[in-house]
């Protein structure tokens, strides 16, 4: 029992943090809002240079061959930087899905270009008809009645669905399943789809942790500088207690997220419940941080010019991605109340007795 990250894992996190602080400042994020696709192939190449798209791609396909336990800290940094390039669908979901499909031809065709930063993949979420970043994807992983399909972009028709978060582009997809695109059917398709959902939700939850941390940091900075009644407003207990509450929510959500990373990496029986708890708690921490941060920034935070809403909108967006809070709450409650035996508590190991 050692519930902590290794020095190497922390080092990777710091490396990514420093990289994003330099290459993905808020000016870059806001600049992308104005471009036609919202996405930057140049920036994606830089991400590929430090290995991010290939984090979960096995080494024999040119990736880093890491696990979700390594990757979860990277996604915290993605959230901190409000980086909205399609790292979740491509790196966190599609790469392991292709690896686990057992389809060697598919893996040989797609994993090397994913790791090299030369291919983007969009993935349909079982919980929503909206597919983010489908317009820049080379491949779409879509679900049909007969199974999962890996479909080239030119075989689908996309309809843009403008989103409240200018950092993302959403689409609905019209397509006809073709036998030659099917990569899994029956129980295998269900299994892959569930694993994809859990991986996507985990990566979002980690980003929500980073988003929450950033919002707290911005609010502490602002309330320590802004003076009213002759003192910094952060010296008032009403403001302190708001931010202390965020810190409590953040730290307990973090424990769930780090445990869920372990559960996904080791594919434990309670994996899905653990992921739902991570997504619920991190999502709520981030949403609460968005509201409280806006409140303590006062009218200034209510302007388009102030950067606060970059992260506020990320908090809103991430809450809806890969299963909104209500969906995960329903899944958790189902595991507790509708199964013959409720889910097992951590530590109370069932192996004894």
């Amino acid at each position, binding site marked *: 029992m050692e519930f902590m990250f290794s020095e190497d894992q922390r080092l990777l996190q710091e490396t990514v943090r420093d990289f994003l602080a330099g290459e993905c400042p808020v000016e870059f994020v806001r600049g992308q809002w104005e471009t036609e696709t919202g996405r930057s192939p140049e920036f994606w190449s830089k991400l590929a240079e430090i290995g991010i798209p290939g984090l979960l791609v096995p080494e024999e396909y040119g990736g880093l061959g890491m696990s979700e336990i390594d990757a979860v800290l990277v996604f915290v940094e993605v959230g901190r930087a409000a980086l909205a390039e399609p790292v979740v669908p491509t790196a966190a979901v599609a790469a392991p899905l292709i690896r686990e499909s057992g389809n060697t031809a598919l893996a040989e065709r797609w994993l090397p270009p994913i790791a090299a930063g030369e291919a983007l993949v969009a993935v349909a979420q079982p919980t929503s008809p909206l597919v983010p970043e489908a317009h820049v994807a080379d491949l779409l992983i879509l679900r049909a009645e007969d199974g999962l399909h890996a479909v080239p972009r030119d075989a689908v028709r996309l309809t843009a669905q403008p989103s409240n978060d200018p950092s993302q582009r959403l689409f609905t997809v019209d397509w006809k399943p073709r036998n030659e695109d099917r990569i899994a059917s029956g129980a295998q398709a269900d299994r892959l789809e569930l694993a994809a959902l859990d991986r996507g939700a985990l990566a979002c939850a980690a980003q929500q942790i980073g988003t929450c941390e950033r919002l707290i940091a911005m609010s*502490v900075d602002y309330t320590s500088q802004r003076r009213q009644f002759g003192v910094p407003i952060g010296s008032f207990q009403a403001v*302190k207690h708001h*931010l202390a509450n965020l810190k409590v929510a953040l*730290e307990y959500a973090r424990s*769930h997220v780090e445990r869920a990373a372990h559960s996904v990496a080791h594919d434990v029986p309670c994996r899905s419940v653990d992921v739902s708890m991570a997504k619920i708690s991190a999502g709520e921490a981030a949403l609460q941080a968005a509201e409280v941060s806006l409140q303590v920034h006062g009218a200034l935070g209510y302007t388009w010019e102030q950067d606060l809403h970059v992260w506020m909108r990320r908090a809103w967006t991430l809450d809806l991605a890969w299963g909104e809070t209500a969906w995960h709450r329903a899944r958790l409650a189902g595991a507790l109340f509708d199964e013959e035996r409720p889910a097992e508590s951590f530590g109370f190991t069932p192996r004894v007795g």
Partner: protein
Amino acid sequence: MDLSYTPEQEAFRKEARAWLEANVPKERLPSFDTREGFDAHCAWEKKLHAGGFAMVPWPVEYGGRGADLLEWLIFEEEYYRAGAPGRVNQNGIFLLGPTIMEVGTPEQKARFLPKMASSEEVWAQGWSEPNAGSDMANIQATAIRDGDDYVLNGQKTWASRGAFAHWLFGMFRSDPESTRHRGLTFILVPLDTPGITVRPIEKLNHKKAFAEIFFDDARVPVRYQLGEEGKGWDVAMATAGFERGLMLRSPARFQDTARRLVDLYRKTVASGQPVAPGLRDTVARCWMDAEAYALNTYQTVSRLLAGGKIGAESSLNKIFWSELDVRMHETALKLLGHRAELLPGAPAAGDVGEWLDGYIFALAGPIYAGTNEIQRNIIAERILGMPRK
């Protein structure tokens, strides 16, 4: 990251489980806030001690088992799983004990720890005074040196089980010219010392174990001073850190409550009794938060075993468990519907369990061990770095 137990840890769990199953009283003991219950709980502690399980993480020479904190967590899980009695000497064994281990002299360790481990001596804490509650540095009780003694005067209050305890620990102003947190000395006081009057206070639960304690020229030998003279504040901070941080409220306690709550929800729904629709979600949330507290504690213990320390983040724990405990109990009362107000003996009560009693106890959580408002100030100032003024 490794979330599995070693074969040795599994074996220890099995051993603890077997012992507890064989020895935990079948009938629930009377409340340790009554004389009869206090004595019954002390007898249970002696049994636990004889079985070698009273103080799992303490060194063997002081009546412990020499185990590490992970084994302590395992033991706590088994303890709550077995429905074993509350720890009557919790202020001693979980708060003062670790502090003596850290700052006590070898003589003090040998004198106090073994009798604490066996609960032959039960401890009360004397933190609060009438004018020193949240403002703990405003202590007015004095300890003036006179030869080899301190002469104590003043008043302490809100001492849990102070009516029955044998010893008290607390801070006294040893430098009468001092103010605030300077000039305080941490002193261990036998409650049968002449000049000490213990007056019980009836608590919200209708029991009289709580006490205020008056000192009227009570003489205590200087060898009962813990840590240096005038450095009592630092000693107290270490104790408070344990209290909020780790030992006082282990996660198993809340996971156990959460599982009973899930069970109550399932039974209530199965009985056909109407249940407010939001409660399904609230119960799930309670269970999830109890899990979060357990996960977070395992992370803290992993960090401690790797050489880390507990600091101001213990304030996060204290807020989290105390507010979770209130929420779990109030949710249970909602599930009990009209029976929620009935005492367990009432003919119409049925299987209401201990939820009402638990609720009234839980309501004290956000107040004792430093109010949650004080904890939020600590988080804002010491963890987030917000301005004091």
